C-alpha cells in the first residue's frame, strides 16, 4: 500500500459520488421512466426549470452585487480621505 492511499481514496470517492449524482440526476434512460414528468407538457417542465434558475440566481446575485458596490465605495472613500 502506497503512502498516500488516503489521498487516492478521497479522490476516488469524490469522483464516484460525482458520477453517481450526475447519473441519477440527468441520465436519459431514467428520464424515460420518470414517474411524474409525463403529467405536464415538455414546455411547462422547461419553464419550471428556467424560473427555478432565475429565482435562485437573482437574489444571490443582487445581494452580492450590492455588497461589492458598498465595498468599492468604501475603498474609494478611504483612498479619497487618506
Amino acid at each position, binding site marked *: 500500500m502506497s503512502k498516500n492511499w488516503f489521498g487516492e481514496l478521497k479522490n476516488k470517492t469524490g469522483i464516484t459520488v460525482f458520477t453517481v449524482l450526475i447519473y441519477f*440526476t440527468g441520465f436519459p434512460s431514467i428520464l424515460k421512466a*420518470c414517474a411524474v414528468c409525463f403529467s405536464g407538457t415538455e414546455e411547462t417542465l422547461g419553464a419550471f426549470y428556467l424560473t427555478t434558475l432565475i429565482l435562485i440566481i437573482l437574489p444571490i446575485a443582487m445581494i452580492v452585487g450590492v455588497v461589492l458596490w458598498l465595498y468599492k465605495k468604501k475603498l474609494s472613500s478611504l483612498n479619497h480621505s487618506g
Partner: protein
Amino acid sequence: MGQQAEAILHETEAHDAHHEMSFWDKYIFSVDHKIIGFQYMFTGLIMAAIGGYFAYAFRMQLAWPGEEVPFYGLVDAAKYNMLVTNHGTIMIFWVAMPVLIAAFGNWLIPLMIGCDDMVFPRLNRLSYQIFLVSALVLILSFFVTGGGFGGAWTSYPPLSAVAAYNLTNWGASLWLLAVFLEIVAFLLGGINFVTTTMNARAPGMGMMDIPIVVWMINIAVILFMASVGPLVAGAVMLFFDQRLGTSFFIPSGGGDPLLWEHLFWFFGHPEVYVVLLPTMGIVAEIITVFSRKKLFGYRTILYTAFGTGGLSFIVWAHHQFVAGIDPRMANVFVVTTILISIPIAEMLFSFIATLYGGSIEFSTPMLWALGFLVSFLIGGVTGIYLGASALDVYFHDSYFVIAHFHYTFFPITIIGMFAAITYWFPKMFGRMMDETLNKIHFWGTFIPFNGLFLPLFLVGMAGQHRRIADFTQYPDLASPDLQSIRIFATVSLVILLLFQFVFIYNFFNSMFKGKKAPLNPWKANTLEWTVSSPPPHGNFAELPTIYRGPYEYSVPGREEDYWPQHLAPNQ
C-alpha cells in the same frame, strides 16, 4: 428621538404650549424606536395568546374527539380547519416575525449600535400601524359569514382560490389581505433596520464590532426582503383569482396550481431562517454573558450565517418532493437541503464551544438559551429525515413533520422570546423580574414542551397525517395506544399553557412592583447597558465611541471580568 427630530416636532407644534407630550403622542403615535418595539412586542404577545388558545382547542378535539371543549365549545370540521390554519399563520406571521425581528430589532438595534433612533422613524411608525391593521383584519376574518379561512397556512390553490371549494368566501380573502399587509409592514421595517445598521453606527464601531444579534437580525431582514417578492406576486394573483374571476391557479381556466407552490415555497423556506437567525443572535448574547466567555469564533458564526442565508434560497423545492415536480430536480434539492445542515451545525458547535472553560451561571435567561440549544438540536437532526426525499415519500404531511418543525419553531419563537424578555427586562422597564417565578415558568414550559412534541414523532411514524379532525374514524390509527399518545400530548399542552399564567403574573407584577434594577445587572459589554433603564427618548446622553468588540469577557490581566465596548483602553 434625536435632537433634530425633536426640533422639527417642536416646530410643528409651535402652537402647543405644553412641552410634555400627551399620552397619544408618547405611546400611540410615537416615533421612538423603543415604544414601537413595545407596541410590536405586546401585539405579538396578544397574538401568541390567541394562537395558543387555538392550539388548545384543536388538541383537545384530537384527544377527546367530538366532545365539547371547555372554554371553546364543539370543534366541528370547519372550525378545526380554521383553527389549525390560523394557528400556523398567527404563530409565524404575527408572533415569530413581530416579536423576534420587529420588536427586538426595533428595541435593540439603535441601542446596541449606539445611535439615538432609527434612520427613518416615521417609516417605522407607519410599519407598526400597517402591522396593527393586518392583525385586526386577521381577527376580523374569524367572524365573517362562513367562518375563518381553513385551507392551511400554505393555502394551496385551487382550494384557496375558489369559494365553492373552501366554503369560506370572505374568510379566505381577508386572510390573504392580512398576510399581504403584514408583509408590507415588515418591508418598511426591514428597510429601516438595514439602513440604520449601515449608516448610524457609533464612531469606532467597525463591521466586526457589531453584536451578533444585530448582525443576525440584519441578515434575516435581507433574506426576507430578497425572498418575499415572489410571494407578494403570488398573493396578488391569488387575490385576483378569489375576487376578480381570473384563473392564474385554476387549471380549468388555463392556470397551474403548482405555480403557487413554486412561488410560496420560494419565500416559505427562507422564512424559516428569517425567524431562526435572530434567535441564534439572542442566544449568542446570553451565553457569552452568563458564561463570562468571549464568543467562540465570531467570524465563523457570522460566515455560517451568511452561508445559511445563501443556501436557504436554493432548498425550497424540498417542500414539493411528492407534489408533482420533476423527481430529477428533487435529487438536486436533496443535496442542497442536506448541505444546509452544515453551516447550522457549525454554528451550534461554536455555541457549545463557547461554554468550554466558562464560568456558567444558571440564571433564567441562560436556562432558556441552553434549553434552546438542546431542543433546537432535536429539531435540527430530525430535519435530516425530512430532507431525505425518499423518506419524504412516507413522512410528507405527517405528524413527523409537525413534530420536527415544532421542535424548530417552538425553541426559535417561544423559547427565544422568553430568553430575550427575561434577559432585557431590567433594561426595558428598569426593574428586575422575580427569579423564582421565572425558574418555575422555565421548567413548567420546557418539560411539557417536550412532553407535547416528542410523542408526535411516534404518531408520525405510525403514519398519522396532518389536518385531520378525528382519527377515530381511521381503523389503523384509532388504536388505543396511539390515542393514549395523543391524550398525553394534549395534557402536556394544557400544563404548558397553564404555566404561562405564572409568566403573565410575573411580567406585570415585576413591571410595576419589581426590585429596581441596576444599570448593568448582568455585567454585560454591549452598549444598551450603558444607558439608564428604561432608556429615555434619544437614548444616549452623549454618543458613545467604541473601542473594542462586544464579547471581551474575562480578559487576562484585567481585574473585572467584563470590558464594556465604550470604555477607553486606559479606563
